């Protein structure tokens, strides 16, 4: 198969997922015999049969947040974002993990599946309901959603940790090199960020978890990496391709480079800043722009980095600093980095305000700033990404257990996975992870979040639980 043909088939795979989503969405409104549904089903049938002619069998599988067709991950573009999200959500709700087309299908096969799928929403055991009905078809089969086994996550967790610390170490090296007038390797920066991009694509929650840990000594370097990770993760939600995500990650990593010009006695001052000191702090965006433009020959990436270094403390409404004389429109990357920067700064303990905030509190403040200081559209994506209970949030559950949000839930935002650190009897426990979507035999949620608390207030070292 030549590459053009291959590209076409990848497009066909993408279209197939999109079409399946359209069929199911339409079927939520109309009966499968309705003309509108029948026409979208016919289109789906044609797509399946086109692909199956070469592949002989087609298995569409949901793994994590991605669909795979015959083991190839389907990359989707922005135009398909909503339909993909819908399908992921609906599959997860029903614990449906895969749909296999064993041979060419006809409209009746699809109708059978659609009916099973739609009616399963009212079943207590949705997957079983679908499986039971689909087994009547000779040409189709379904599989249950595979749960992430905790042990399987150990290796990725190790790799993610390594990537994170590599990035921090690289950032520290860059700053030191610039300070001592040495040459900085942009090739390395790209490599570091590419690895982060890969992890965000495959293990978003693990890398986001690394940003929640705020107990490190070297805030500046960790902050740069955290902002880079949060920006990449947001960029991924916005449908940016891998190359753009890398650019965004590099740009975000260098956003605070101007801070190296701030005297250490100001940067590390344990008390509040004076007006003069604030004056110095407020110059770091301009210093950042200058530092980047001196770093290397001008190219697209340097320009983007310089723009973001200059604009990251400007607000959406152009308030903030540095003060702008002539109105400009903030760059897209700047608006992303600004969100990530504010969030990480607010939830960290060594920023100018010196008062670290609980992640959910930071989000609620950012919510108030949305539309004035923050881009409302990007914030909408951001909050969808970190969830209302971001990783690292200290939560009291209805079961009188105290825990830390360990992993967000993209489908049920209020029901993340939580690591229990104090059990219902008030005893410290080693930490086990519970899923707040779990229900008891009466179809009631076993645990829900009762309240959130500030982990910083109690000096809870998140690293103990998240690493």
């Amino acid at each position, binding site marked *: 198969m030549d590459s053009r043909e291959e590209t076409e088939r990848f497009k066909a795979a993408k279209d197939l997922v999109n079409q399946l989503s359209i069929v199911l969405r339409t079927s939520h409104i109309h009966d499968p015999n309705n003309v509108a549904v029948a026409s979208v089903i016919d289109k789906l049938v044609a797509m399946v049969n086109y692909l199956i002619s070469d592949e002989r069998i087609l298995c569409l599988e949901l793994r994590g947040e991605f669909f795979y067709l015959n083991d190839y991950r389907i990359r989707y573009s922005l135009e398909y*974002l909503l339909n993909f999200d819908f399908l992921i959500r609906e599959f997860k709700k029903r614990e449906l993990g895969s749909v296999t087309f064993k041979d060419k299908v006809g409209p009746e096969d699809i109708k059978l599946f659609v009916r099973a799928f739609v009616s399963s929403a009212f079943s207590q055991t949705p997957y079983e309901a679908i499986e039971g009905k689909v087994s009547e078809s000779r040409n189709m089969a379904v599989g249950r959603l595979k749960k992430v086994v905790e042990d399987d996550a150990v290796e990725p967790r190790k790799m993610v940790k390594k990537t994170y610390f590599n990035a921090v170490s690289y950032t520290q090296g860059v700053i030191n090199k610039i300070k001592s007038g040495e040459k900085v390797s942009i090739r390395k920066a790209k*490599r570091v960020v590419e690895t982060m991009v890969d992890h965000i694509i495959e293990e978003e929650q693990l890398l986001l978890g690394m940003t929640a840990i705020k107990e490190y000594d070297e805030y500046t370097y960790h902050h740069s990496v955290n902002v880079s990770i949060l920006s990449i993760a947001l960029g991924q939600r916005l449908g*940016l391709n891998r190359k753009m995500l890398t650019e965004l990650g590099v740009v975000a990593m260098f956003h605070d480079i101007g801070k190296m010009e701030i005297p250490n006695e100001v940067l590390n001052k344990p008390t509040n800043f004076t007006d003069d000191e604030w004056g110095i702090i407020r110059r770091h965006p301009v210093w950042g722009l200058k530092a980047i433009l001196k770093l290397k020959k001008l190219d697209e990436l340097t320009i*983007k980095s310089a723009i973001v270094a200059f604009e990251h403390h400007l607000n959406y409404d152009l308030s903030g600093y540095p003060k702008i004389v002539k109105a400009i429109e903030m760059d897209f990357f700047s608006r992303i980095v600004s969100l990530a920067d504010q969030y990480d700064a607010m939830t960290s303990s060594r920023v100018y305000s010196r008062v670290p905030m609980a992640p959910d509190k930071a989000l609620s403040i950012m919510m108030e700033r949305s539309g004035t200081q923050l881009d409302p559209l990007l914030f*909408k994506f951001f909050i969808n990404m970190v969830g*209302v209970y971001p990783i690292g949030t200290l939560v009291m559950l209805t079961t009188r257990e105290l825990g830390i949000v360990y992993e967000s839930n993209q489908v049920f935002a209020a029901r993340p996975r939580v690591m229990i650190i104090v059990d219902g009897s008030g005893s*410290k426990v080693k930490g086990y992870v519970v899923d707040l979507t779990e229900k008891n035999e009466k179809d009631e949620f076993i645990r829900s979040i009762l309240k959130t608390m500030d982990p910083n207030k109690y000096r809870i070292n998140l690293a103990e639980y998240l690493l």
Partner: protein
Amino acid sequence: MSEELRKVKDIVQSFQKSKKILRMYPANNPIYLTTLENDHKRFKEFFYYRDELTLKIRQNEMFFDAEQVYFNPDKDDNLSLFFFKDGLRELTFRKGLSYEELEDFFKIISLDFNSEVLDDDIVTLFWEKDFQNIHYVVDETVLSDDEEYEARAMQELEKKETEEDNLLKAYEDAFREEEVTKEASIVPLSDKDLQLLLKDLEKDSQDKASKLVDLLLEVFRTQSPNDYDDLVSFFGNAFEYIIQRGNIQTAAQTLSALKQFAEQKQTDEEARRHVRKIVLMAGSEAVIMLLGEVLDSGLEIEEKLFEDFVKHLDKNAIVPFMKILGELKSIHARKLVIDALILLGTKDIVTLARGLNDSRWYVVRNIIYILRKIGDKRAVDYLLKTVRHGDIRVKKEVIRALGELGGGGVLQALRECLDDADGQVRSAALKALGNISSEAAKRITMNKVSEKEFRDKEFEEKKEYFEVLSRWKDNDLYEFLMGTLKKKSFFRRARNYESRACAAYCLGLMGNKDALSLLNKYKNDGNKLLREYAATAIRRLEHGQ
């Protein structure tokens, strides 16, 4: 040695060769195509035995199934080291490997990674390609400057273990404190959100250089003079970048904005001085040479935009523009540069005139044309030195220019040119005299006609003289023509009739009806030429034909 091992060795050996060939030849070259086809064939043959080929990479050697398939202890031309130094430790080719993927793979490995221009290493380029059938394993430790960093950071974190008392205090407080969480309210994304996002992304794909210069201008407006020197250098780099991309509009807008800033009352002298420096950088040789490349690339550039850019430049741009003028291949590009020099030349005629010493005739001719278009009489002194240029095309151009500019020394030069051995030069000089249209120019022309030797000129040249003379239309000339028309000769009568016919022709062109009575006398003359030209002149005078 097994057959498959032999095939793997063949494949690895071919890497080195193909790497070189792809670097040397263009993609449509038969050697390039054959090499790739053979490489692809080798892989296909291997996949007959196995579904994938995995090469383990060490510093100086490569292994396949624990068998060494490559070894090179030298640093130079070491394929293994080439992969190893960027962290590649394993390279796997899968059965579905397409010709195009293989070509992309070789295109990447044939790049010059020692070049500073290349910002990507081999792994980044593989990563960006996102191959379906080429997989690799990398060792990320090569990215870290400090291999112990992770271990140290972890040790530090362990020291900060959460105290049990604090944890239990949190637990107790959880029951005491009033705060109860509000229900989560994530706003679902709508189609409208996606539309807005698409617009944002579309806008984001535009060139960022204009944004950068906007920010540099902001810094200029708001920062201290300590920043000015840096800004000059940044703007200089920005101009190179912008011009290289053919973004003339941004370059023009930037210069315009800088000038506006410099003209503002509140702008201090130091800032103005630096703006002038930036303008000089915009017209520097580096920038103009890049502009030349863009102009010659066939990129369509709007003349108005180009003019907007050039008009803001300073006279330092003249020399580089003259330099590229001789190097440009496209006519359109040369025309734009000529227009640029016409605009800029007014700022420094002396520098522009230096171009007249260029060794290339076409550059000299273009400079003469530019000086003529500028119309500054100061150029005459320089042009006069070019009158004796060895190339006829240059001579013609300079004579034309002198004719348009006039001024001291010009008439003498033109008079000399009327005696030039080349008819084209004589003709150009004659037209130039006509252009000057002064009394002295007329006198020179009339004197030339009166000379004995004039009779011996070819009829067409004689006619040209009289055509030129007709421009003066004064009585002096009228009398001169009447005299010539009447003039009889016993010797070389045919030649004399030519001169008389030309005089008749000229009287017709002059439009003076007083000449009709005399012309009527010759309309039936025995000489055919005189008869015809007299008749033509009469028609012209009577009917304006």
